[in-house]
């Protein structure tokens, strides 16, 4: 059943993102053509204006993808759990945990795919430019060295960033769930969100100070463990609200 839940979550993501990704890569290719033409010596005010427009469009698309990746999953969670669609989602013969975890996994996948799409687009743009091969080679060597010589730091980085992302995603879910429980008041939810976010920044600053002086890997592991606990608490809160205090709109 969990895989079926995932399947339908992915279907939703594909429907929401296919057009955006397609347009993004379309703009990337057009911009690449302009870059090639500029390298080949093309110029002129019309050419420069068009090239500028496509460069700005490419940048805006990158921002849109980033923003959509963050907001889309939280919006999907709100709509499918607490909106009218919740009458369908919450009466499926699956456990509450499966329902929530499927959304987390789909959200994380969406994040990774968007990240890869942006990296790929940047790659397309820089490949073929004079000196770019050196840069790419340098990056590859750097990554290779990091994996061989500083594997603990790389592992700690992935560990830390995974749980920071999970805690952030679950923070959005928790805020949505709490907002639904208190009657869907937007003002109250925004205030609650700001309050919790300030608390989060305060705690994060304390953690950074606490790990000051320890190794980079140690600090990242420490922060990662902290956010793992935070993510666990957030999951428990979301689970409890969905299971026992569901207030469908």
């Amino acid at each position: 059943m969990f895989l079926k839940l995932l399947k339908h979550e992915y279907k939703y993501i594909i429907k929401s993102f296919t057009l955006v990704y397609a347009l993004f890569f379309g703009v990337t290719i057009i911009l690449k053509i302009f870059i090639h033409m500029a390298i080949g010596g093309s110029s002129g005010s019309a050419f420069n204006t068009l090239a500028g427009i496509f460069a700005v469009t490419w940048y805006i698309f990158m921002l849109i993808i980033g923003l959509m990746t963050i907001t889309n999953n939280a919006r999907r969670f709100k709509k499918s759990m607490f909106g009218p669609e919740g009458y369908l989602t919450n009466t499926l013969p699956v456990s509450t945990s499966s329902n929530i975890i499927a959304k987390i996994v789909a959200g994380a996948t969406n994040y990774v795919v968007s990240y890869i799409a942006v990296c790929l687009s940047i790659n397309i743009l820089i490949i073929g430019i004079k000196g770019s091969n050196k840069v790419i080679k340098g990056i590859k060597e750097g990554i290779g060295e990091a994996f061989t010589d500083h594997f603990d730091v790389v592992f700690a980085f992935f560990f830390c960033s995974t749980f920071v992302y999970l805690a952030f995603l679950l923070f959005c879910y928790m805020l949505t769930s709490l907002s639904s429980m208190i009657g869907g008041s937007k003002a109250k939810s925004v205030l609650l969100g700001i309050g919790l976010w300030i608390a989060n920044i305060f705690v994060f600053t304390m953690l950074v100070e606490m790990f000051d002086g320890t190794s980079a890997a140690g600090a990242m592991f420490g922060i990662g463990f902290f956010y793992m606990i935070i993510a666990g608490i957030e999951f428990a809160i979301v689970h409890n609200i969905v299971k026992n205090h569901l207030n469908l709109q």
Partner: protein
Amino acid sequence: MADLAYISNVTKVYGSQVALNNVNLTIPGGKVIGLLGPNGSGKTTLIKLLCGLLTPNAGNISICGYPVGPMSKSVVSYLPDRTYVPEWMRVREMLDYFCDFYADFRRPLAEMMLQNLRIDPNAPMKTLSKGTKEKVQLILVMSRYARLYLLDEPIAGVDPVARDYILDTIIKAHSPESSVIISTHLITDIEQVLDEVIMIKYGNVALCGDVPGLKAAWNMNVVDIFKEVFKGCF
């Protein structure tokens, strides 16, 4: 016919308001049951408790021997009083969705009903009218071979022709051993299909019994019994 569901000492409270107060009911198998009561009497709360959307503050509910949870949800087919179909899906995708999650979903029956009602399976949900969306939902719900159907206001807001089709679908599509609970205000329209009624008043069961027995005991039809029971409640 064996009993399908047991509701024992169930109480549901919203803040300081008691929606259901120590309700005890047994839902028999093979019956069409009318869940009747004025607005705010607790009908929808009872249905939501049975389908697992709400958790009781006290008491127990079991359906086909299962406590309310994933197992009970697999034998309950629920139609809410509002449209819940995801706007981003097409009608055909909704059939796929039900096929994936409900082993008892009868796809050929659903496709036949869609054809009868001239609903295009390729139509995106967002392009359908509210009435058509409600019909799609009813088709999805009644195409399941469930043990217990919970229909919350299935005929409210639909035209008389569609109303007849819906009632006909409800009667024909449910299996002989399953039961259908219909919550509605439109008693006149459904009286002829009801085997039993449960009348809820201020969160308590005011009257419960089989229709022929009640008619004989009160010497009046269900609508008049309803008016008698709820005199002064409106």
